[in-house]
C-alpha cells in the first residue's frame, strides 16, 4: 500500500509539473502592413470586441500547408483573442460524419470535397453563409460562379478559402527542350511522342496518394473533359446528367491514356501507380532527367520546392498552361480549391468565417505563396511568389474558368473515379468495364 501511495504521489506531482509547463509564452506580433490590416479586419469581423474563447475547425491540411494556412489565422487570433483549434485529418469525411452524428461537430470545416459538403448542406448540417456573413458581403468579395458552386437550394453552404489553378505543365527550363508555348495539345503530344520514339520518357506521372490514390489521374481526365467536350457538357456531367459511358467521357479517358503508355511514362505505368504524387517531379531533376513534363495544378510548385528548396523559379522550375485540347473551346481554365463551411453558430465561429471572407485575409493567403486567393478584392500585385503571380495572370486572361467536376460529385462517385484513374492506367483495354463501374455508383 505504501508503494502505491508513493507512486500516486509522484504521479500527481508529475501532472502538476507538466501543467505548469503548459503556459505558452506570448509571441511577438508581426508588424507588417498586411498583418496589421488583417488584425483590423479580424476585429471588425468579431464585432469590434475581443471575444476570446475558441473555435474548432476540421480540415485536411497538414504539414507545411497547414502552417501556411494557420499563418493566415494568426492575426485573427491576436486581434480577437479567439483560439482556432485546427484539427487536420486525411479521413475528413469519416471523422466529420462521426462527429456530426455523435452530436459533437466541429464549429467550422474546410475541405476541397464540395460535393460531399453539399450532401451535408442538404441534410441541414451546414449553415447558410449568406445569412451569417451577409449576401452583400459575399457578392462584393466572391464571383457569382464560386458562390454558385458552393450553393444548394439557393443557400450558400461554403465560401472558397483557397483556389488552385489546374492544368499546368511543370518543367525544368534548364533541361527541357520541348515547346513552352504550344498552340495545341496535339503539338505538345507530338513532341512527347517523338521523345518516346527516341527512347526518352517525356511524362512524369505519379498517382499514389494513400486512401485517395488515383486523384491526380481523375483531375487530369476531368480537365481534359472540360476543355475537350466543352464547359456545357462538363457542367451537365458534373451534375450527374450525362452518363459516364458517353463518348465524350470515353474520349477524355483516351486522351489521358495517350500520356500514360509504357513508352511515355518514366518507369512505365507500374512506377506511376506506385509513386506518391508528391514525388512525381523527382525524376525530372535526375541526371539525365528521367522525364521532362508534369501536369499538375499550382500547388505542385510548393510541393516540389518543399522537397527541393534549391530550385530557382524560372530557371530550374517553371510552368506553362496546358494548351487548348479543342480549338472549339479556347482559353478555358479549370480551378479547384477548399471551401469553408460553418456548422455551429457561435460568436467565435461567425467571426472566423466573416474574417476568412475579407480581402485582408485573402491577401495574407496570397502572401503564403501556396494558393491563389478566391477573393475578388485581392489585387494580383500582392502575389510575391512568381508562380502564383503568373497563375493569377493566366486566370485573368482566361476566356472562362470552371471548377473541376469531381470536386462537386458525391463521394462514392469520386472514389470510383479515383479508382478508375488507377485501373485505366493499369489496364487501358478495360475502359468499357471501368466506365460501367463508375456509372453503377450513380
Amino acid at each position: 500500500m505504501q508503494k502505491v501511495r508513493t507512486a500516486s504521489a509522484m504521479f500527481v506531482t508529475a501532472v502538476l509539473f507538466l501543467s505548469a509547463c503548459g503556459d505558452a509564452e506570448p509571441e511577438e506580433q508581426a508588424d507588417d502592413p498586411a498583418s496589421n490590416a488583417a488584425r483590423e479586419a479580424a476585429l471588425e469581423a468579431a464585432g469590434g470586441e475581443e471575444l476570446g474563447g475558441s473555435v474548432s475547425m476540421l480540415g485536411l491540411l497538414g504539414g507545411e500547408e497547414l502552417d501556411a494556412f494557420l499563418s493566415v489565422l494568426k492575426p485573427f487570433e491576436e486581434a480577437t483573442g479567439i483560439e482556432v483549434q485546427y484539427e487536420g485529418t486525411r479521413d475528413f469525411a469519416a471523422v466529420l460524419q462521426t462527429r456530426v452524428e455523435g452530436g459533437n461537430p466541429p464549429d467550422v470545416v474546410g475541405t476541397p470535397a464540395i460535393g460531399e459538403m453539399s450532401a451535408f448542406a442538404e441534410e441541414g448540417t451546414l449553415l447558410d453563409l449568406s445569412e451569417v456573413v451577409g449576401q452583400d458581403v459575399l457578392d462584393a468579395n466572391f464571383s457569382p460562379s464560386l458562390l454558385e458552386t458552393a450553393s444548394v437550394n439557393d443557400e450558400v453552404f461554403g465560401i472558397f478559402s483557397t483556389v488552385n489553378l489546374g492544368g499546368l505543365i511543370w518543367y525544368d527550363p534548364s533541361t527541357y527542350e520541348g515547346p513552352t508555348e504550344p498552340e495545341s495539345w496535339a503539338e505538345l503530344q507530338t513532341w512527347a511522342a517523338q521523345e518516346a520514339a527516341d527512347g526518352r520518357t517525356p511524362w512524369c506521372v505519379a498517382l499514389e496518394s494513400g486512401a485517395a490514390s488515383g486523384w491526380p489521374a481523375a483531375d487530369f481526365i476531368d480537365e481534359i473533359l472540360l476543355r475537350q467536350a466543352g464547359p456545357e457538357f462538363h457542367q451537365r456531367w458534373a451534375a450527374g446528367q450525362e452518363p459516364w459511358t458517353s463518348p465524350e467521357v470515353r474520349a477524355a479517358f483516351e486522351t489521358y491514356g495517350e500520356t500514360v503508355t509504357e513508352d511515355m511514362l518514366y518507369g512505365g505505368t507500374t512506377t506511376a501507380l506506385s509513386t506518391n504524387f508528391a514525388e512525381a517531379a523527382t525524376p525530372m531533376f535526375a541526371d539525365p532527367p528521367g522525364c521532362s513534363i508534369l501536369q499538375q495544378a499550382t500547388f505542385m510548385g510548393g510541393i516540389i520546392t518543399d522537397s527541393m528548396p534549391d530550385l530557382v523559379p524560372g530557371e530550374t522550375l517553371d510552368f506553362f498552361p496546358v494548351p487548348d485540347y479543342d480549338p472549339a473551346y479556347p482559353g478555358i481554365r479549370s480551378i479547384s480549391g477548399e471551401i469553408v463551411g460553418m456548422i455551429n453558430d457561435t460568436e467565435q465561429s461567425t467571426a472566423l468565417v466573416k474574417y476568412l471572407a475579407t480581402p485582408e485575409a485573402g491577401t495574407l493567403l496570397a502572401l503564403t505563396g501556396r494558393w491563389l486567393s478566391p477573393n475578388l478584392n485581392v489585387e494580383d500585385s500582392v502575389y510575391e511568389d512568381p508562380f502564383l503571380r503568373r497563375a493569377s495572370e493566366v486566370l485573368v486572361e482566361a476566356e472562362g474558368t470552371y471548377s473541376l467536376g469531381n470536386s462537386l460529385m458525391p463521394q462514392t462517385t469520386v472514389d470510383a473515379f479515383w479508382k478508375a484513374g488507377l485501373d485505366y492506367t493499369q489496364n487501358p483495354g478495360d475502359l468499357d468495364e471501368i466506365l460501367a463501374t463508375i456509372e453503377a455508383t450513380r
Partner: protein
Amino acid sequence: MIVDRVQLIAIAVIVTVVVAVGYIRLGDRGLRGLLPRHWYRRSVPWLFIGPAALIVGLVLVFPGISTVILSFFDTKGTNFIGFDNYASALTDPITLIALRNTALWVALLPTLSALVGLLIAVLADRVRYGGLVKAALFLPIAVSAVAAGVIWTFMYDYQPPVAAQTGTMNALLTVLTNTDPIAWIIDEATNNYALIAATLWTQAGFAMVIFSAALRSVPDELLEAARLDGASEWQTFRHITLPILMPTVVVVTTTVTVIALKAFDIVYVMTNGTYGTDVLSTVMYRELFTARDNGGAGAIATMLMIAVLPIMIYNLRQFRREGQGV
C-alpha cells in the same frame, strides 16, 4: 497541447481508479449492511459483474443488435427492405472480391502465425541467442497497425528497374536474384500475400509468446523419458510436445482467425482496397463513410459477425473445458 492531453489522461486514470475502488468497497459494505446474509451472498457477484455487464451491454450488445436491425433497412434506416442489402452485397463484384480475399486472409494468417510462432518458440529455446530472436519477433506487437502499414509500404516500395531500389524487399530481390523489381502491393499476383505478410509480422510475436509460455508446461520428465526410449527430436516433438500444446494451438489460431476477419488498418493504409485487395472491413468502411449507407454497411458487418460467432463459441468452450480439466 500534449501537456493538456497528458493531464487529461492522468485525471481520467485517477478518476477511474477512485470510482472503481469506491464502487466495490462502498457497494460491498452497503450490501452487507442492508441485506440478510443469505441475500448478500447471492447479490455480491452481481455487484462485481454489474459494471462490466453494463459496459458490454452498452458498447457491444446494443450496437450489435442495432447493426443487425439496420442491415434490413435502407440507406438512412427508415424503410424496411428485407434481405435486399444482403442480396446486393453478395452480387456486387467488389464485395465478392473482398469475400475471396477475406477467405484468403483467414486461411493464411492464422496458419502462418501459428507455424512461425511455434517454430521460433521451440527452436529459440535451444540456442544461446534465442532471447534475441524472440525479442526481434516480439517487438512488432508494440507497433500500431497503421505504423506497420506505413513501414511495410516503404519495405515494398517500387522503383523502375533503371533506378536504385529504395524498398528493402526489391533491393534484396534485385541484388540476390538479378531479376526486375516487383510492385508488391500493386501486382495482383503478390499484393494480397504482401499485405498478409505485413500483418503476420505484427501477429507472429503474439503467437510465439503464447507458445513459449505453453512450452514451459510440458513436463521435462516426459521429454526425458521419450529420449531415453530412443525417440528422435522430431518424434518427441510430434508425439509429446505437440499433443500437450494442442489446446494452445487452438487458442492461437482462433484468436488470429478473428484478427484476420477483422483485418482493416493495414489494408486501408497500404492499398485502400485498390488492385483487388479489398477485404470485408474496407468495403464496410466505404459503405458507411463514403456511401453513407447504414443498411449496406450493417449487412456486411452482420455477415462478419456471423462468421466470427462460431469461432468465438468454440473458443469459449475450449476455455471452459480446460477450466474443468484442471
